[in-house]
């Protein structure tokens, strides 16, 4: 033990001259355990379920997905337009989900950015100096919550819509289509939310991150709408095809265009994007001051 470099050596108190190892020490009677990701997961689960914003955003999400889904179903059934041909009745779930994605993204951003907004992050990072563990726990808990809620609501709305359209000319969806329109689209939703969570962690500002995510969803379509120049035709096409609403519709096999992503492509795209963003956020989190 080196002695402190006191600018006023005459003021060294008596107890500082005490032998180095003879310090009193305190041992807590509460057993000390080795912490791991499981502890962080339990903590993040407590966090996410104990704030009202979770209930609000997920409640509105369920309401939008099921409400708009049922509404479109009812409109289609009662209108003269029939879904004969090759139309997939599950596609009616698309509109509700598109609006609902805003709620999932908001919740994702809030999971990380609200801790920065309130200052809670300093308490959290003091309680768990392994910053990566906190981010991983947040990501896992949020992903599971978002996926479960999306799966339940998309499954419910899909069941309701096929039942409503049973009498019309719509065809029965295949098993693969069912899988894509429920599990596939829920995975996409949860990953989109996860991307928002990561962006929230990078930007550390709720409103900013939410705005960016809504921009990411809407901007490509809006920009593409105003690209009249012929030379920009290819860019315009790509913007249309890879815009998030179009990627979402791929899961219902009614893409806006024939080229572009198809099948499970959108899932791989968002998975790759989220993974890259997550790695970046992880590195930044380790490096930056909290």
């Amino acid at each position, binding site marked *: *033990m*080196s*002695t*402190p*470099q*006191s*600018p*006023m050596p*005459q*003021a*060294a*108190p008596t*107890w*500082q001259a005490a032998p180095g190892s003879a*310090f*009193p*020490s*305190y*041992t*807590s*009677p*509460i057993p*000390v*355990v*080795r*912490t791991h990701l499981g*502890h*962080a997961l*339990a*903590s*993040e689960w*407590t*966090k996410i379920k*104990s*704030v*009202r*914003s979770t209930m609000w955003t997920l409640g509105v999400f369920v309401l939008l997905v099921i409400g708009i889904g049922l509404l479109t179903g009812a409109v289609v059934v009662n209108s003269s337009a029939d879904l004969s041909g090759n139309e997939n009745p599950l596609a009616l779930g698309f509109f509700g989900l598109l609006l609902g994605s805003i709620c999932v993204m908001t919740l994702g951003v809030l999971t990380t950015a*609200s*801790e920065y907004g*309130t*200052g*809670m*992050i*300093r*308490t*959290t*990072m*003091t*309680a*768990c*100096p*392994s910053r990566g563990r906190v981010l991983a726990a947040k990501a896992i808990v949020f992903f599971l919550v978002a996926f479960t809620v999306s799966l339940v609501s998309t499954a419910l709305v899909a069941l309701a819509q096929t039942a409503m359209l049973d009498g019309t000319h719509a065809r029965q969806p295949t098993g693969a289509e069912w899988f894509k329109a429920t599990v596939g689209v829920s995975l996409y939703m949860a990953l989109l939310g996860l991307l928002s969570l990561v962006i929230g962690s990078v930007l550390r500002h709720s409103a900013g991150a939410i705005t960016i995510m809504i921009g990411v969803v809407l901007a490509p379509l809006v920009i593409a709408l105003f690209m009249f120049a012929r030379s920009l035709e290819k860019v315009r096409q790509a913007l249309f095809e890879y815009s998030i609403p179009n990627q979402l519709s791929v899961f219902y096999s009614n893409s806006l265009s024939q080229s572009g992503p198809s099948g499970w492509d959108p899932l791989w795209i968002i998975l790759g994007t989220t993974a890259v963003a997550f790695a970046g956020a992880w590195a930044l989190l380790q*490096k930056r*001051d*909290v």
Partner: protein
Amino acid sequence: MIEAVGLTKRYGDKTAVYNLSFQVRPGAVTGFLGPNGSGKSTTMRMILGLDNPTAGTVTIGGYPYRRLPNAPRQVGALLDAKAVHGGRSARNHLLCLAQLSGIPARRVDEVLGVVGLQGVAKKRSKGFSLGMGQRLGIAAALLGDPQVLLFDEPVNGLDPEGILWVRNLMKALAAEGRTVFVSSHLMSEMALTADHLIVIGRGQLLADMSVTDFISANSADFARVRTPDAEPQLREKLTAALTEAGGHVLPEQDGALRVTGLPLPRISDLAHEADVRLWELSPHQASLEEAYMRMTQGAVDYRSTTDQKAGLMQPLPPGAQPPVPVPGQGQPGWYAPPPPQQGGQPFAPPQGPPQGAPGQPAAGPYGAPGAGAPNPYGAPAAGGPGAGGPNPYAQAAPPSAPAEPTSAAEPTSAADSTKPEDAR
């Protein structure tokens, strides 16, 4: 044990902390003092691994914080009472922190009891007052029953009962052999709580010493001598005699003399030899506040200036006097006057506390808030400054001064309380 070696932190071209080296030992309360913006909070954040130092290291028990195994079980911290998610209830806030470090959930209810928040455990912390938030922060620090505790301004916003409780809590924690590191701006509080002081200014170490050493190293102790008012020639005579004997004499505005360089018995002897009667001969030792102000004068970044209201002032009505400025407003080099006494009795006996014996409130049992002890704040409040007087602000009296042991033991002249003492 917290040990900082050459700790430096720069934000852009602003150096918040520069080459700070100190040790915080277990078994004592170490006060961490410094003016606003001097780098106290930055240092605390670096200790907790929240900010990475630009240079140097800080370790707790030999490890950097981020490499401590199960850090919250070894270090508890209250950095900012507002560092909670307002939408979460107090209990859930503590529960998520407990789960993070594998602390059993019943410990949450224990610490809620310790800080006295059981009644509002289910309430969202958004609605908490500053004091309640502070208690919640202290609960979070105590959650892991750690060996090292850091508190940044723990008594902010607490009621008198809470301040007393925190004071006793700090001492009790240190008495158990823990390291307690507390930053505060309340000097009277620090004088009662801390054993050791680390003072920084502009991010650099100014002092690292015990409280008593700090006070004596940073204040000129003096003797106040008063001769009969009606006979100024006696004063001249005594001044000459004292100066001749090697003393340094400064006249005070009210006619008393401030003598340094001579012990009290010697002054008395000299006065006797010169055949001068004395009305007062009293020792004066500075308070911690005064010593602190003296030390940090040059390191204050944010100093208030006089509110000029240039061009906005109404012309004074004819015959009206402009208001006399209160001392300390926008006067560089000013520092706190000695603690004021109840005026009019400069000959109060030194051994008797002048204010109806509030005694030392720290005598209560450690860690037991208000256990049977009579409220020590009741007595000074009753005879407080300007009680019932026409203008309670006329006396520049720090409200906590009566509880301070130095002021209780050594009465000084009341006339001093309203004038700056930069003549020293």
